[in-house]
């Protein structure tokens, strides 16, 4: 039970990072972006490429950082992966979503998102193959935190949790203490009112894509640190990330964080009573239960 709870918290931190970006985009642009999880794939694969390049050019960067499986090359690669994924998110909006937004309905946006997701997934498969990749082929042993009850945790997992929490704290600071954060929240709540208060909507939309893409890249790399990287990361994570967003309440950053942890913990704790094959159904069940009790999610508010 304790082990499942710990695993759930660790998975939850990755889901939260993905859900924060998704909730911001869904709230501001009012469409279900089913391609958001593919940004995690872009981030994970970008880091894979840069990691290989840096390790080849600068062999000393292939050294591991302390007890982690992460190398200095991968750490540097993350910066580039963040930049590439953030720019990709912005580019996808400019090429696809903005055009559909100006011409079509919200439903058209959803279909466009499905199309974008399929394109990204298959392009990645085309270039990198359908097999799995790893950032590090070395075996990293879990540390025995407790023997009774048994609790094993890998240093990488602790790192991803601490880093994810640190990012969330920074994001919280920006949103609650800076006028840029107020502006982002204002646009999410009431775009028209935000505009007449001097906030340029197009800049805020671009910022949301950049932030969402950057967080997705970090989530993708963190996922890759503790799992295998494959072109179907997006397909596997889209539902848990959506569940986290809906459970937390669309538009609520803090809700997305809570939702990520709830979905991660619930899915892992369910392993105690459910066969692993049924675990993908857990996010569905959570969505249903939360929506029946609180239709706007745990932290969401009704909106026009």
């Amino acid at each position, binding site marked *: 039970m304790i082990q499942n709870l710990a695993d759930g918290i660790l998975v939850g931190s990755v889901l939260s990072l993905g859900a924060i970006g998704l909730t911001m985009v869904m709230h501001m642009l009012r469409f279900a972006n089913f391609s958001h999880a593919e940004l995690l794939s872009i981030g994970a694969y970008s880091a894979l490429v840069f990691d290989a390049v840096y390790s080849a050019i600068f062999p000393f960067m292939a050294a591991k950082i302390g007890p982690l499986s992460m190398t200095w090359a991968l750490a540097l690669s993350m910066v580039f992966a963040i930049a590439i994924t953030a720019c990709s998110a912005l580019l996808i909006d400019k090429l696809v979503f903005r055009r559909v937004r100006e011409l079509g309905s919200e439903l058209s946006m959803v279909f466009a998102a499905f199309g974008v997701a399929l394109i990204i997934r298959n392009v990645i498969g085309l270039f990198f193959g359908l097999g799995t990749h790893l950032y590090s082929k070395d075996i990293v042993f879990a540390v025995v935190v407790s023997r009774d009850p048994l609790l094993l945790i890998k240093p990488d997992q602790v790192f991803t949790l601490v880093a994810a929490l640190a990012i969330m704290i920074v994001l919280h600071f920006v949103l609650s203490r800076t*006028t840029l954060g*107020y*502006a982002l*929240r*204002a646009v999410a*709540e*009431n775009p*028209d*009112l*935000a*505009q*007449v*208060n*001097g*906030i*340029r*909507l197009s800049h805020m939309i671009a910022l949301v894509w950049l932030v969402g893409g950057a967080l997705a890249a970090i989530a993708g790399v963190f996922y890759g640190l503790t799992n295998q990287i494959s072109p179907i990361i997006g397909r596997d994570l889209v539902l848990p990330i959506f569940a986290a967003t809906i459970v937390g309440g669309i538009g609520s950053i803090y809700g997305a964080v809570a939702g990520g942890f709830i979905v991660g913990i619930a899915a892992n704790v369910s392993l105690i009573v459910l066969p692993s094959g049924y675990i993908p159904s857990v996010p569905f069940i959570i969505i249903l239960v939360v929506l029946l009790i609180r239709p706007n999610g745990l932290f969401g*508010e009704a909106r*026009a």
Partner: protein
Amino acid sequence: MSEIALQAEGIVAGYVPDLTILRDVDITVKRGSITVVIGPNGAGKSTLIKAIAGLVPKSAGRIVHEGLDISDIRPDQLAVSGITYVPQMDNIFRTLTVRQNLDLSLRGLKSGGYSRRDELCTLFPALAEKQNEKAGGLSGGQRQFLAIAMALAVSPKLILMDEPSAGLSPKAAQDVLERLRRLVEDGVTILLVEQNVKQALRLADHCYILAEGRNQIDGPAADLLADPVVGEIYLGAKRMRAE
């Protein structure tokens, strides 16, 4: 300097391309005055003010503010150019605190934001006490004062207001409308849309009556208030006489 603050000519506008709501509407607002737009439901009053604010697309017409053509200006640029808009409903950010709402409106100022916030709180003492509370928890009157304070943050020349008394108690509505008169005395020009016709006409200097998206009548507010035909059609004359 011209005494005209805003001139809108031949405005044709609607929310969607095939559905025109405003059909060739003209309006002129004199500097340092309150101009009110009244009319039955569906007349296009709110659409007119939103079209001026840049929130509803215009298919024809020209809007000039202080000699500058603002017909195609973005809503966020409008605030910078000295025109602020206070919507009827949802005119504050409910999830932000009162202070955050004010800071957001003050962000355009290059300096003096904090002292300006203090000035606004002095102007609206009810807000000063609730600076750290979520704006969504304010009463109707306090929300309206916050919305006006936000509009005043950048020291605008012209404020566009959509039914500032809507949903307020008679006392709160009276307070808000009286506050508008004081703003005009301080040099601000106001264009407002009102359903509360009698109060609006008593407050305003000039009035436009719209119906079915077109100009019907306009003139000094006091004259229209006394006009028996206008009273009969738009103001419920019998009820007025009884009062």
